[in-house]
Structure formats: structure tokens, C-alpha cells
């Protein structure tokens, strides 16, 4: 369970460029919750993700994950149980390393942090085992992209869709407690986006991963997962789930947003994409 209480973040405080990116955000995600997040540019969606992932420490508030206070934990420590995907498919992988090597680095998250000093040294100097290789191969075959036969190829040679699928696999090779998806299909062509989305759905469902997904596609926001959050001006202005969400149409959602935020959604990208059917 992820619980954010009263998270605030202000950039460039005290200067002319001061920007209140998050103001007192409260959010509770139950285990297995899958929430989509929509909001205009600058609403604070990515900032919220950065706060959860630990890219920066929030000015105020508290973050708890499974009852543990992680507010001041460093990014690389949190990444042991928080998986994250970015919009840019080039960000999550190392281009000059092979698929196998990339997976192996991602698999470091499986390491037991409580081990003794010498056990950790031994682990640091161990190599990819045949058993791990078999596991990587099996996982890659689930992507249905033929990557399992290209384990020795550098990741830089893969297409954007393939790289994003691989990043997803890497983020979930050790099941994370929470998965953050920041418009991870937005930079892909439609067929690759559909494919990566399907893989996302399958993995999240199969292992019932708690998941937050930013999207600009209103249909997606209502169809995927079990909750829809809308953000505006650094706040979560709408949080719909259950019965209420099931019967909702995109125009219902937009009018609810206008009601709560006191203004209509001003994101062209969102308005344009409401017509799409994904």
C-alpha cells in the first residue's frame, strides 16, 4: 500500500520563477490498485512521480510504502521496490550494452540488501548464471518480439517500441511494490503503443502490481485500471473509482473536472485524443 500525505513541492522558492508544483497532495493506493492520471501540462503529474520515486525530496509531507516511511530514502534505494518508465523509450536502457546485460543490471534489484559484507562482495563479482539467462530468455519470449533470440545484441539497435517493452520487462523483472508509468506509450507509433500497452496490462494483471499511469488519452484513462485521478495546479482534483467510474463517459469526466477544478481542461493533446479509440 502506498500512502502520500500532504506532499508539497515548490521549485525555485523565493524567486520570480517560483512554481508550486505540488500543494498538499494526499493519495492512498491499495494493493493491486491501478490508477490512471490525467491533467494538463504543468498539473504536477511528473512531479508527483518524481516525489514518489525520490528524484527529489518533497518539501513537506510523508510517503509511506507498505507501512514503511520512505520520505527521506534516496532514489536508488527506492528503486529496489519502485519500477518506473518514462515517455522517452531511450531513457530506461543502456544502448551500448546487450539485452542480456541490461536485464542482468535490472535484476540486481533482486539482491538481498541484508546480506553480510562478504556475501555482497561475492555477489558483486559473480557473473550472469545459466539459470538467470534461462529466466531472461523466458521472460523475453513473453513479449513476443523475438528478442529472446537477440540476447547478445546491443539495445541501441532495437526500435523504440522494443526498447520500451524491454524497459517494462526490466522494471518488473523483480516484481515492484509500485509501478510508475509516465506516458510510456506516448512517443511510440500507434501499433507499437498498442502492443506495449497490451504487455503492460498483461504484466500488471498477472502479478497484480500496484500501478500509477499518466496518460493523455481520455478513453485510456477510463478503460484501464480501476481508478482515474485528475490533476490540476499541483492538486488531485478528482479521484473516481468503482461503480461511479464504470458508467462514465469521456464527456462526463470532462464536466466533472471542470466542476472540481473551476475551469475546463486546457490540454489540446488531451482534447484531440478523446476522439481516438484505443
Amino acid at each position: 500500500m502506498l500512502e502520500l500525505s500532504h506532499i508539497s513541492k515548490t521549485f525555485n522558492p523565493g524567486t520570480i520563477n517560483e512554481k508550486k508544483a505540488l500543494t498538499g497532495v494526499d493519495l492512498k493506493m491499495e494493493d493491486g490498485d491501478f490508477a490512471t492520471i490525467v491533467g494538463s501540462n504543468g498539473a504536477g503529474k511528473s512531479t508527483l512521480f518524481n516525489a514518489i520515486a525520490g528524484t527529489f525530496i518533497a518539501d513537506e509531507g510523508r510517503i509511506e510504502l507498505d507501512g514503511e516511511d520512505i520520505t527521506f530514502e534516496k532514489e536508488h534505494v527506492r528503486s529496489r521496490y519502485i519500477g518506473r518508465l518514462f515517455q522517452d523509450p531511450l531513457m530506461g536502457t543502456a544502448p551500448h550494452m546487450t539485452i542480456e546485460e541490461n536485464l542482468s543490471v535490472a535484476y540486481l534489484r533482486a539482491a538481498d540488501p541484508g546480506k553480510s559484507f562478504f556475501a555482497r562482495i561475492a555477489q558483486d563479482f559473480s557473473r550472469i548464471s545459466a539459470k538467470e539467462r534461462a529466466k531472461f530468455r523466458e521472460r523475453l519470449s513473453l513479449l513476443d518480439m523475438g528478442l529472446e533470440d537477440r540476447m547478445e545484441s546491443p539495445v541501441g539497435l532495437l526500435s523504440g517500441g522494443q526498447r520500451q517493452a524491454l524497459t517494462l520487462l526490466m522494471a518488473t523483472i523483480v516484481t515492484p511494490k509500485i509501478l510508475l508509468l509516465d506516458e510510456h506509450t506516448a512517443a511510440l507509433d500507434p501499433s507499437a503503443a498498442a502492443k506495449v500497452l497490451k504487455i503492460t496490462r498483461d504484466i500488471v494483471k498477472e502479478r497484480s502490481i500496484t500501478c500509477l499511469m499518466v496518460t493523455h488519452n481520455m478513453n485510456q484513462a477510463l478503460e484501464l485500471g480501476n481508478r482515474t485521478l485528475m490533476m490540476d495546479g499541483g492538486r488531485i482534483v478528482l479521484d473516481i473509482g468503482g461503480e461511479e467510474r464504470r458508467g462514465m463517459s469521456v464527456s462526463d469526466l470532462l464536466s466533472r473536472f471542470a466542476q472540481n477544478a473551476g475551469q475546463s481542461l486546457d490540454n489540446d493533446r488531451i482534447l484531440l485524443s478523446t476522439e481516438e479509440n484505443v
Partner: protein
Amino acid sequence: MGFFTIGIIQTAVEVGLIYALVTMSLFISFSILDICDLSTDGCYTLGCAVGAVVTMAGHPVLAIFLAMLAGMCSGFVTATLQTRFGVQSILAGIIVNTGLYTVNLAVMGFSSNVSIFGQDTVFAAFRKLSSAGWWTDYSRTILLAGIVGLVCVLLYRFLGTRLGLSIRATGDSMAMVKASSIDPAFTITTGLCLSNALTGLAGCLIGQYNKTSDINLGTGMVTIALASLIIGQTLFGRGGMKLRILGVIVGSVLYRLIMAAALRLNVPTEAFKLVSALIVAIAISAPQVKNMALFSMKKSSALHGSSVRKGDKNA
């Protein structure tokens, strides 16, 4: 063999092998970690100074390990400055390099050079293993080739371990490293310690090789190592690790051979730095010049080809 004598080639290969260790150091910091570590000059002298002093005390083998340890410490300081205190990597290297000048003087007892003539060196000890004529001639080359070969194999094996892969990933994609629960500060520190230990090793070997240590020994070493690195990269490409490591060695030896050729062509020693700078510039620009040549060839043939086709249509 009119131009080169065996002796010239042998010396070039031997010094090239020692330089290969510095190039390997830059290979780790510059190519793998993507960090400009400019402390190489000072660190090389540090290795030489520490090595010379310990050799003077009669422990040539221990000197090698202590020189590596000294290099490691220098790398640790450079790494700590950039990972913990936010100093830019280039600045961190320059700061450490400046500080090392005094440290090096202090190690040598505040004199600008130390001579270890008459002392036992690892080369002398190795030569004593046999009295055969060829052994006396080539034992130095064999020892250096053995050391460099061992370092290469160990480095290659290391880069395939989890820690090695994490270091490679740090230079390749910082976002991915952070997402994989790896602390980049730790991998950068480990990488720079390793890389500077190799520089220290090279410094110690050159000191025992020349039987002297000089405060200005390391000046320009970064440029030389960079030149060798680029020569290797131009020849062997950026493919597999094995090839890249091989490129490091070939590049360094080739660099020394080019310098030996310059010497044979009676280039005055004062002009050597200029020659090395030229070699670097040529080696770095070679791939681009090749591309430009290919492009203009393609362009001229395409223009020629289309004009012929046009002519056909008109006919």
C-alpha cells in the same frame, strides 16, 4: 629494417606496453564511465614517485602494489569530489592534479627527481631468472607483456561481473542505473579507483624502467593516453569488449612507434609535444574525414549517374 632497428622497435613496444596501462585507465574513465578524469598526469607521477621511493628502500615488488594503492587513493579523492561534493568531473580532476604536484614532491623528499640507479628493480629480478642470451635481451618485454596481458584479462573478466556491468551501465545510461537500485556514486568511485590504480601501476613501471623519477614525468600523459585510445578506437571500432581492450594496447604501441618514427626523422625532442598533439588531432578527425570523403564520392557518382539517366530520357 633500414629505418627501424630491432632496438628501436623493442623500446617502442616496451614503453608502449607501459603506456597501454595509462590508456586502459582512460578507457575505464573516459570510454566506459564517460568521465573526463584529468588527474592522470599527476597520478602517473605519483605512481612513479611512490614506486621509486619504495624501490630505493629495496622492495621493488612491494613498490608496484603501493604505487597502485596510491593511485587508488588519488582516484578516490577525485571521485569523492564529484559524487559527494558536486564538483564537475573535469574540475575535480584538475584540482586533484594540482594538489598532487605538492604531494609528489613530498613523496620524493622535496626534490624534483629521484634516481634509483643500482637498485634492484622488478626488471632486474626477472632477468636474473635465466642467463640465456635471448632471455637477457627480451626478459623486460616478456615481463611487461605478461603484466599488461594479465591486467587485460582481469579487466575483461571484471567488466562481465555484476559490479563491472553496473559500472558500464553508469556511463551508458544514468537513468537506468538509478532505476536498478545501483548507487551511481559507488560505481563512479569504484571505477575511478580502479582506473587510477592502473595509472599508478604504469607510473611505477616507467620509474623502474627508466631507473629515475621526475616531478615533470607525467606532463602531457593525458594527451598521449587519449591519442592512443583514439587510435585504438579508430582501428578496432566500438564493438565487443575484447576488441576494444585489444585496441587500447595496439593503439598505445602504435603511438610509440609513430613517435619513434618521428625521432628517426630527426624531429627535435622539443617538438615532441606538438607531434603528439598532431597525432591526437589526426586520429580523432580520421573517421570524420573518411565520412566526408565517402560522402563526396557518393555525391559525385550520384550526380554523374542521374545526368546520364536524364540524357537517356532525352535521347
